[in-house]
C-alpha cells in the first residue's frame, strides 16, 4: 500500500521531469560527468599503482637481492687496458650470508653466462642462469610443463635446463620438446621444464623477458663455463672474472627484512674492498611505491573532487533556476491545498529520481572509460567499489540538497506571494 503510493509519487515525479526535458537533462549531465570522471580517474590511478606494486611483489617482499656491479673506478680503468676485471659476488658470500643471519631462510646464488644456444638448426643468443632449486621457490613463476631444477640435478651434475615460455617459443620448442637436447655453448643439455616468463609488459624492474633465459644447475654452470667471461666488442676484448652475479636471500618475516638487509650490507662492506655490488630490497621499493600511490591518489582524488564540485555547482544552478521558475507552480499547488511538506516531498522525489538516474548513467560512463583505456591504450585500470560509492554518494547528496533547498524556500512563501510570482 505504502509502496503503491510511493510508486504513484515516483511516477508523477518522472512525468514532471519529462515535462521539463531540457532542464532535467542538463541537471543530469552535471551528475553524469561528475560521477563518471571521478570513477574513471580513480580507476586509472588505481590501475597504474597496482601494476607497479605487482611488479615489486613479484620480486618477493621478503627477499633481499644483491646484484654484482662493475665498480665505477674499474670502468674508468678499462681504457688503460686492464686485461681482466675482477669483481662481483663470491661463492663465499653465499655461505657467509646463510650462516651469519638467523632470519635468513634461504640464499640462492645466480650466475649469469651469455652463450649461444642451439636447438636443431635454430641458434639464439641466450642468457644462461646457473642457480639452485631454491630459485624457483623465491621467484614465483608458474611451471608450464615438465619440472624445475631439483637437488639431485646438482648432486649428479646433470646437464639439464629449464627454459622460459618466451625462450621456448623462440627456440621453436613446445611441450613436445621436453626431453629434447639443446646445445649451450659447447655442451648439450636436456630440456626438463618450461616456466612462465614474467608476465608484465613494460615498466618492469627487471626485464629479462626479452632475453632467452635458460636455467641450469649452478655447479654445472661453473664446471662447464668457468668464472671468466670474454667479451669482444668493437675490436677490443675484455675479460671479466665474476663468481656470482646475483644473490637472493629470503628472510623469514617482513619485519626482519630491513634489519637483515642492513646487516648484509655491513658484512659485504667488510669483505669487499670495492663496492662491486648493489643491494635492493623489494620491500623498500614496495613501501616507496605505496607512498607514491598515495600521493598519486591524493592528486587524482583532488582533481576528481573538483570535477564533482563543478558538477554539483551545475546541478545547484539549474535547480535554483528551476525553482524560481516553478515558484508560481508551487503557489498554485499551495492555493489548491497542498501542504508545505507535500511540496517539499514532491521536489525531493523529483531530485532523487533525477540524481539516481544521473548517477547510474555516470557509473556506466565511469565503467566504460576505464574499459576503453584498457582496451585501446592497454593500460591497466581498476574500478574500486569505494570509488563508485563515494562519487555516487557525493553527487546524490549535492543533487538532493540543492534540489530541496530552493523548494523548501519556495514552499515557505505565502501562497499569494508565490502566486503573484511571474
Amino acid at each position, binding site marked *: 500500500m505504502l509502496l503503491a503510493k510511493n510508486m504513484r509519487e515516483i511516477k508523477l515525479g518522472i512525468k514532471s521531469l519529462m515535462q521539463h526535458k531540457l532542464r532535467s537533462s542538463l541537471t543530469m549531465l552535471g551528475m553524469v560527468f561528475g560521477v563518471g570522471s571521478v570513477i574513471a580517474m580513480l580507476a586509472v590511478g588505481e590501475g597504474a599503482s597496482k601494476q607497479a606494486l605487482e611488479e615489486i611483489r613479484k620480486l618477493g617482499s621478503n627477499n633481499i637481492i644483491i646484484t654484482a656491479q662493475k665498480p665505477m673506478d674499474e670502468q674508468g680503468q678499462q681504457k688503460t687496458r686492464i686485461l681482466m676485471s675482477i669483481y662481483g659476488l663470491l661463492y663465499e658470500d653465499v655461505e657467509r650470508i646463510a650462516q651469519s643471519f638467523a632470519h635468513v631462510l634461504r640464499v640462492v646464488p645466480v650466475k649469469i653466462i651469455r652463450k649461444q644456444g642451439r636447438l636443431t638448426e635454430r641458434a639464439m643468443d641466450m642468457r644462461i642462469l646457473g642457480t639452485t632449486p631454491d630459485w624457483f621457490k623465491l621467484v614465483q613463476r608458474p611451471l608450464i610443463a615438465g619440472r624445475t631444477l631439483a637437488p639431485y640435478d646438482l648432486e649428479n651434475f646433470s646437464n639439464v635446463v629449464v627454459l622460459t615460455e618466451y625462450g621456448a617459443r623462440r627456440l621453436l620448442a613446445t611441450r613436445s620438446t621436453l626431453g629434447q637436447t639443446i646445445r649451450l655453448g659447447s655442451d648439450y643439455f636436456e630440456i626438463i621444464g618450461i616456466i612462465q616468463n614474467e608476465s608484465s609488459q613494460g615498466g618492469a624492474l627487471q626485464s629479462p623477458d626479452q632475453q632467452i633465459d635458460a636455467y641450469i644447475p649452478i655447479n654445472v654452470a661453473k664446471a662447464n663455463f668457468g668464472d671468466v667471461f670474454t667479451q669482444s666488442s668493437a675490436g677490443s676484448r675484455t675479460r671479466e672474472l665474476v663468481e656470482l652475479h646475483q644473490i637472493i636471500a629470503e628472510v623469514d618475516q617482513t619485519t626482519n627484512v630491513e634489519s637483515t638487509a642492513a646487516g648484509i650490507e655491513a658484512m659485504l662492506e667488510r669483505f669487499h674492498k670495492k663496492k662491486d655490488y648493489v643491494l635492493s630490497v623489494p620491500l623498500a621499493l614496495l613501501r616507496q611505491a605505496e607512498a607514491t600511490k598515495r600521493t598519486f591518489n591524493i592528486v587524482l582524488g583532488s582533481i576528481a573532487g573538483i570535477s564533482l564540485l563543478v558538477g554539483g555547482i551545475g546541478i545547484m544552478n539549474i535547480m535554483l533556476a528551476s525553482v524560481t521558475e516553478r515558484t508560481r507552480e508551487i503557489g498554485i499547488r499551495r*492555493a489548491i*491545498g497542498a501542504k508545505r511538506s507535500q511540496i517539499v516531498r514532491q521536489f525531493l522525489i523529483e531530485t532523487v529520481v533525477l540524481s539516481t538516474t544521473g548517477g547510474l548513467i555516470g557509473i556506466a560512463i565511469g565503467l566504460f572509460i576505464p574499459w576503453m583505456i584498457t582496451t585501446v591504450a592497454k593500460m591497466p585500470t581498476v574500478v574500486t567499489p569505494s570509488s563508485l560509492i563515494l562519487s555516487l554518494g557525493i553527487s546524490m547528496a549535492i543533487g538532493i540538497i540543492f534540489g530541496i533547498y530552493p523548494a523548501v524556500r519556495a514552499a515557505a512563501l505565502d501562497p*499569494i506571494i508565490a502566486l503573484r510570482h511571474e
Partner: protein
Amino acid sequence: MPMTAIQSNRKPRGREPEALLEDIRKIYTMGSTEVHALAGVSVVFEHGSFWAILGTSGSGKSTLLNVLGCLDRPTSGRYLLQGRDISSLDDDALSEIRLRNIGFIFQSFNLIQQSTVEENIQLPLYYQGVDAESSSRRARKLAALVGLEDRLHHRPMELSGGQQQRVAIARSLANDPGLLLADEPTGNLDSKTSAEIMRLLCDLNEQGKTIIMVTHEPDIAAFAHKRLYMKDGAIERLEG
C-alpha cells in the same frame, strides 16, 4: 450548455452560514506606515448565496477574498467557515481547509502549464490522496460538466481563455467544496465568453454552491444575487 449535476456527498447542513466574518482586520506594515487593507469587516455569507464583491482597486476586495479563501490570515478578528472558527489555525490546517472545503477560481486561471487538462483537474484529489483511478474518473466527469470532455489531454496553452477558465472551474469543483471563491473570473475574457462562464457559475450556485466573486464590472456583478461594495478596506454598502 449541457449540465450534468455532480452528486454532492456532503451532508446538508443546518442554517449555519457558509462564512461569517467578525471585525476582520488586515494590517500591513510598510516601513513606518501601517496600511489597513481590511479595517474591520463584519459580514455573513449565507449558505447557498451568490455574492459579488465590488470596489475600486485598493479597496481591499482581493484581500477579503484571500482571507475568505484561507490564503491570507487576518491580523485580527474572527472567521467562522461552515461554523468552524479558523482564525487561529496553523498553515497545515489552513492548507487542509483549502484542500477540502474551498474551491478557487482565479483571474489568470492559474493552471499548471506542463500538465494536461485532466491532470490539472485531478490536482486537489492527488493531494487528498484519492487513488488514481477514481480521481481520473471524477476528472473526466467534471470535464464533461464544463464541456471539455474532448480536451482532456490538451495542455492549457492549447486552449482558449474561456476553455482554460472552465478547466479551472472544473478543478475548483474536484474536492466538492461548499464554498467557491472567484477572483475576477472573467477579467481576462471577452464579453461572450464571460457570459458563458457566468452562466456556468450561476448553474453551480443553483446546485447549492455558495459563490463569492470579486469583480469590478457591474454587469458581471449583476449575475450575483447579493453585492458587497468595498471602500478603503471597509464595507461601503450591501445590496440585495
